[in-house]
């Protein structure tokens, strides 16, 4: 399976939709519409 690198600096991040912790679908563009967004990927719960 080809691995993709995803957006680097200068690239436009493709919008995506994921459920939040309450189960509501959220789009990345909700966080970047009016403001910049700090997006933190983390390992998850131990």
């Amino acid at each position, binding site marked *: 399976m080809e691995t*993709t690198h995803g957006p680097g600096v200068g690239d436009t*991040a493709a919008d995506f939709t994921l459920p939040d912790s309450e189960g509501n679908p959220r789009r990345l563009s909700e966080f970047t519409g009016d403001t910049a967004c700090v997006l933190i990927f983390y390992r998850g719960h131990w």
Partner: protein
Amino acid sequence: MYHEFRRAGAEVAAISVDPPERSAAMRRDLQLPFTILCDTARKVITEWGLLNPREKGGIAFPATFLIDRHGVVRMREQENTMSRVPPARMLEYLRAMDEASQAPAPKRRGVSPGLMFLRAIANGFRHGTRVKPE
């Protein structure tokens, strides 16, 4: 800390493969004010090149992105669990980004964003930061 980011003009969101129930419990326990997104299918994590397939059936490598209001990635740092980007450095970078042009960053030059980032760190050392690094 979160309000510092809001004042600097940024939203914060965290993303992992944990299911919503697990993320909601962690959010309650840690009283996190920001959104947690649940990539249980590993779709975004894989597309963004952050899949660590060797642990727990596939989890995300730690990484922090700064995405501006045009949807352009201004900073991408891939980290390890022991040394995440300190919030104070993120704030400095956010403020440096705001002072620079609002136009989208040039594509993949490599030098400009890195220079801005180093300047932000240097400012942090020169002027100190009011926030305790984690």
